[in-house]
């Protein structure tokens, strides 16, 4: 049966489909609807637990702790909330807690422009917490895909034993579309981690060896641990090389866009080829290299000042042109004129 759902609703339903049993959050536009739905769902389903925390720090810590305690857990927030959750994100990678952090982006820095859509948290989710870690992040561009990728994010979390980020934007969160959820087939990866209360382990954010003993001055153990973390994350990411490629014959220019921007520029596919990365992190380096090879110009259109363009340049070792859609301005006409301007005389 088809139903009219918003991006936020689809994300929540996706999480339930994936088997989530815990939600902790703090009100913030544009993801407050997920918090609201979770509170209602918890009233009706006693096996689902809900916490409206005192701040995003607590929400993120509670999510990871619930995951360690043995249930699938998730939280949802926006850019300013993710800033507060960075501490927990780093911790979650070290204590190996599978969970999902939904980040629906709005214009920043700080409070920014509530609530205009943006895509400007790419750098903060990549490495906002202290130290090295290798987050996995997905970014849908439709309500249906929000549902599907939420399940994928939970699966990737279970496989990589870490918090996985599901990106959205204020636009997508509040976008209503007709979807038939029953027709969407998804596979759900079950939980493999032993829950708390079944051993004598230490889940610590401090560097430790495989037995859980704290080792704070041994570079060899640390290097081994980090190499394993990296290898595990890259291996799991390899299973989800998600992207969409819309080639246009004779086009000399490839447009790269993701999330809502890719929806907005879709009328341009008559004239340009379009590449849409769905897995934002780890960056689709091999795919970017292959796709961009045959094009004279690459233009990255995104809701920030060149965050993904930078990653693209790193991956393909070529300069790319940038069209930053800032301050919530995502007008197709404007984007089109900017593309023309960039291509003038080239």
């Amino acid at each position, binding site marked *: 049966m088809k139903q009219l759902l918003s991006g936020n609703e689809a994300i929540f339903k996706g999480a339930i489909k994936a088997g989530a049993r*815990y939600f902790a959050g703090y009100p913030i536009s544009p993801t407050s609807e997920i918090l609201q739905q979770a509170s209602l769902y918890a009233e009706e389903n006693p096996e689902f637990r809900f916490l409206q925390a005192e701040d995003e720090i607590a929400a993120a810590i509670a*999510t990871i702790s619930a995951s360690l305690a043995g249930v699938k857990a998730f939280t949802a927030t926006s850019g300013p909330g993710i800033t507060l959750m960075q501490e927990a994100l780093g911790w979650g990678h070290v204590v190996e807690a599978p969970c999902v952090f939904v980040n629906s982006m709005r214009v920043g820095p700080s409070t920014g422009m509530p609530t205009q859509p943006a895509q400007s948290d790419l750098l903060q989710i990549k490495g906002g917490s202290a130290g090295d870690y290798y987050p996995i992040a997905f970014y849908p561009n439709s309500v249906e895909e929000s549902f599907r990728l939420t399940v994928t994010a939970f699966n990737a979390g279970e496989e990589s034993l870490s918090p996985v980020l599901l990106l959205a934007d204020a636009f997508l969160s509040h976008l209503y579309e007709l979807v038939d959820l029953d027709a969407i087939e998804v596979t759900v990866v079950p939980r493999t981690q032993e829950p708390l209360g079944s051993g004598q382990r230490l889940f610590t*954010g401090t560097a430790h060896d495989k037995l859980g003993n704290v080792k704070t001055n041994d570079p060899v153990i640390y290097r081994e641990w980090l190499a394993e973390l990296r290898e595990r994350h890259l291996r799991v990411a390899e299973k989800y090389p998600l992207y969409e490629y819309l080639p246009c014959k004779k086009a000399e220019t490839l447009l790269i866009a993701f999330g809502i921007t890719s929806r907005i520029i879709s009328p341009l596919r008559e004239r340009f080829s379009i590449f849409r990365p769905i897995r934002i992190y780890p960056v689709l380096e091999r795919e970017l290299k292959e796709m961009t090879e045959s094009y004279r110009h690459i233009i990255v259109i995104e809701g920030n000042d060149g965050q993904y363009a930078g990653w693209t340049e790193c991956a393909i070792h070529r300069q790319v042109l940038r069209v930053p859609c800032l301050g919530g301005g995502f007008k197709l006409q404007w984007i089109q004129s900017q593309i023309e301007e960039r291509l003038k005389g080239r």
Partner: protein
Amino acid sequence: MIDRSYKDLLKMRRFPHTWCPGCGIGAVLKNVAMGLREMGWDYRNTVIVSGIGCSGRMGGYMNVDAVHTPHGRPLTAAEAIKTVRPDLNVVVLSGDGDLASIGGNHLLHTARRNPDITVFCNDNEIYGLTGGQAGPTTPKGTKTITSPRGEHYQPLRLNRILTTQAPYFYAKTTVYHLNHFKTCIHEALRYKGFSFVDIISDCIELNGRRLGFKTAHQMFKWFDQRFHIVEGVRDHLKDDELGIAMKEADTLPKVKVEVSEKPEVSLKDLKPFSLEELASFDGQDGKPIYIGYQGKVYDLSTSPLFQGEKRMRCHLGGKDLTQEIGIAPHGEELIFKFPIVGRLKE
């Protein structure tokens, strides 16, 4: 014969531990382990949650699943674990800096939500692990490395903060008053709800020596001078009292919702105003300010926005504002607060 079976609860292979000789944490660890043994709790049904700091390391020495959270977050983590796994006994072992300073917000809100967890706070009145900086519970006038001429501010009084909102269980004891200390641990573990044991403990190396104490024992004697035990269960504890403060839930009166309605005034009985007459009541020359709205005339003289000025931002006095208010961002309920003095002539 001394019962040493509590040692099963300690990871003896990890000894010698990391703490300085003379530190009070050893006593806390041992007595908490004895308390758990007395309750018959072990790795199958107990989880220790700890924060950052010297006292946060206690979790790593316990032979149960332990969660070592980022600084200040053990309470949130413990609450989430207890929420999703009510079958587990959750015990928090942490320090005053962690719980009361960086985790102060979580302390207030976790206490408010009253989960069934037990908190043991090793309150040594200093930041020990980071080198002896003034902490939230450092008494006024104490010299530390960040208050070289004496701490300027009053310490945080946990005995008052944690006993404001019933139900509560707050016990204060010291590592010196051993029997009292054991009683407090035992009572706190048995209490159903959020129980907090404030254990005044010594940090001889980074606090005591600067204060002039030669040995830990001298600090214990100092505790004996500063505090005295009060018998029985109290409602509140004074700053120099050791004991148990406990209160059952208050039944607060429910917030009543009362909607007051103004009696309807028949239009016919009101004094008629023409638009010209109305125009003269614009607040100038000491006249009242009248405005027309939906056929009625309201006296806005008492409005703080109109006071002393004939206009406030965009609305003028002495006019029919029906259309203007229709498009204004505020609603008509602002107008209805003011007295009706007449009606507008057709």
